[in-house]
C-alpha cells in the first residue's frame, strides 16, 4: 500500500516538474525572492533647513516577492516581468535643523511653527507593490531589468521628537518656546502619509546556481510620502531604496 502511494507521489512529482519544464520552454520563468530594503525617504535636494545629519539608520526592512517573467522572441533575450512584492520601507534619522517648519504636540495640543534644534525621525511603511519591468538576459548567469511600480501602503508611521532647541510659534518672529535641559516634544504625521506610491525600478540578477540567484534592485519613488494637502513639512520626501536579496527560480 505504502509503495503504491509512493509511486503515485513520484509520478505526480514528475508531472509537476514536467509542466514547469514545458512552460520554461515556452519562455515562462517563476521566481520567489527575499531580501532587505536599505535607504530612506529623502528630500531632493536636502533643503537648507537641514544643517547636519547626526545619524542615519536604514533599519531592517524585509522584502518578499514573487515574480513571473515571460521571455519573448526567438532568442528569448528580452522579456516582460511582473509580480507581487510585500515590502517594508523605513529609516531612522537624527538631524540638526534651522527654521524648520513643523507641528509639535505640547501638553495635548498641536503647536505649529519653526523649529531650530535637534529632530529625530522614525519612518516605516509596509507596502504591497506591483512592479512591471522590461528584462534583458545577457546569458545564463546575468539579467537586468528596468520598469515602473505602483505600491499600496498597508500601514505606516512617521513620527519623532524634537529636543535641544526652540520653537518660534507660527512664524520666525513668533513667541520663542525653549526646550533645554533634556526637555523634548513629539510630532506624529502618520495620518498624513499617502496611500499610493509609484516610481521607477532598475535592477539585476546573478544566477549563482541553477535555482539560486542574488538580486539587487534600486527603486525610486516619484511621489511624496505625504498627501498633497499636507503643508506642515514644506518639502517633499521621496522613498529611495536599494533592495538586496536572494532568489529561488523554479
Amino acid at each position, binding site marked *: 500500500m505504502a509503495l503504491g502511494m509512493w509511486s503515485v507521489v513520484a509520478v505526480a512529482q514528475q508531472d509537476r516538474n514536467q509542466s514547469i519544464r514545458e512552460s520554461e520552454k515556452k519562455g515562462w520563468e517563476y521566481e520567489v525572492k527575499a531580501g532587505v530594503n536599505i535607504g530612506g525617504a529623502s528630500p531632493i*535636494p536636502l533643503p*537648507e533647513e537641514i544643517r547636519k545629519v547626526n545619524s542615519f539608520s536604514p533599519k531592517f526592512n524585509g522584502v518578499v516577492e514573487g515574480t513571473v517573467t515571460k521571455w519573448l522572441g526567438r532568442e528569448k533575450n528580452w522579456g516582460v516581468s511582473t509580480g507581487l512584492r510585500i515590502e517594508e520601507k523605513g529609516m531612522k534619522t537624527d538631524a540638526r535643523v534651522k*527654521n524648520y517648519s513643523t507641528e509639535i504636540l505640547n501638553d495635548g495640543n498641536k503647536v505649529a511653527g519653526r523649529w531650530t534644534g535637534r529632530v529625530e525621525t522614525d519612518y516605516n511603511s509596509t507596502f504591497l507593490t506591483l512592479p512591471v519591468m522590461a528584462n534583458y538576459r545577457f546569458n545564463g548567469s546575468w539579467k537586468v531589468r528596468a520598469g515602473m511600480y505602483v505600491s499600496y501602503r498597508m500601514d505606516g508611521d512617521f513620527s519623532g521628537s524634537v529636543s535641544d532647541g526652540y520653537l518660534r510659534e507660527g512664524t520666525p518672529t513668533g513667541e520663542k518656546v525653549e*526646550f533645554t535641559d533634556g526637555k523634548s516634544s513629539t510630532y506624529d504625521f502618520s495620518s498624513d502619509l499617502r496611500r499610493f506610491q509609484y516610481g521607477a525600478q532598475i535592477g539585476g540578477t546573478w544566477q549563482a546556481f541553477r535555482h539560486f540567484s542574488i538580486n539587487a534592485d534600486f527603486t525610486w519613488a516619484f511621489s511624496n510620502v505625504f498627501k498633497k494637502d499636507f503643508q506642515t513639512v514644506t518639502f517633499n520626501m521621496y522613498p529611495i531604496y536599494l533592495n538586496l536579496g536572494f532568489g529561488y527560480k523554479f
Partner: protein
Amino acid sequence: MKGITKAAFVGLCFAAWMTSCIKDEAANAEADIVACAVSGNLLIREPVITNTEVKFYVNGWEDLTNLAPTFTLTEGATIEPASGTKRDFTSPQTYTVTSQDGQWKKTYKVSFISGSPATEYHFENIKYYEYTDIWDPTAEPQKKFHIFYDRTIEGTDMEWSSGNAGFMITNSTAPATDYPTSQAENGYKGKCAKLVTRSTGSLGAMMKAPLAAGNLFIGEFKINIGNMAKSTRFGMPFRMTPLGLDGYFRYKAGEKYINKNSEEQTNKKDVFDIYAVMYEVTKDVPYLDGTNIKTHENVVMMAQVENRKEAGEWTRFSAEFKSVKGRTIDAKKLRNGGYNLAIVLSSSEGGADFNGAVGSTLYVDEINLYYK
C-alpha cells in the same frame, strides 16, 4: 555574510551622500532684539526684553525726551529707526526689525518705565491679549485672554501678569472666560478678578503638570518649559516702604486634590494663597521667581495672608509687612529703585509644584497696598 557587508556599505554610502549634500546655511529668518543698552547712568536695573517689547527701568525724575537706546539684533537683521537714534520716550516708541533674509518683520514697543505699581486695585479695567493671524492679516485680530491693568501713582498704566500666555499655547481656542485668570461680574464693588485652577488635559498629566493654577501677580510671565515654576518672574520697582495689604475674597476649593502624578490625596484640601514680598534687586539676582520668591535671602519684607479658608460671601483679608530675618530696607537703595515689590495671588497655594484641585476658584476685589 556577503549580503551583510553589502548592506553596510550601501548604508554608509547613503549616509555619506546625504551628509555631503548639505546646502549652504540660509540667511536668518528671525528678527529679534537680543540685547539693548542706553548710555548714561539712567538704568536702575536690567532691561526686560520680551518677544515684542523692550522695557527700560529708570528713576522717576529722569528726562526722557532725548534718549538714544542701542540694540543688538539677530545676526544680519536690521532695525528701523536705526539703533542709537535720538527719540522722545515720554511715550513708548516703536521700532521695526527686519530679518537677514528680508522676509520677516517684527515690531517692538520700546518704553522707559519710571513708575511704581498702583496702590488701589479695583480690577475694573481689562484689555485683551490680541493674536494676529499671520496667514490672514486682513482678518480681525483674535482676542485671547484678559489682562488687568491699573493706573499708577504717576498716572501711567501698569499691567498685572498671569500664567494665561502659557495656557494659551495649549488651549488656543478657549474663550477668555475659560482661562485660569479672567474678569468676572458681581465683585465686591463692580467687577472683580476670578482665578480658577484649570486642568491641562491628558498630555499635561503625562508630563507631570496636570493643572494650571489661576494666578495674578505683579511682574513678568516668561515661559520656561524646562521648569514651569521659573516662568513667573515676580516684582516691579517700588520706591516706598510697604506697610500692609488688604482686600476682599471669596473661595471654594476644588473637589479632588491631586499631586503632580495626578494621584488623589484624600486627606488634603486645596487652599488659596495671597502674599506680597519686597526684595532687594542685585546684579546676580535681577528678579525672583516661583522657585524662590518666599525663601531667597534677598527677601527683606513679606506680608502673608493667614487663616485662609473657604468663603461663600465676600470676606475681608489683610496682612502686615514684616521684616524677614531682621533685614531692613536701605533708604538710599529704596530711593534709587533698588527694591522690587511683588503682590501674588493664586487659586492653589501649591500650584507651582502642581499640587492642587482642578476647579478651585478664588475671587478677589478692592485690594489696597499701604505704604509710607
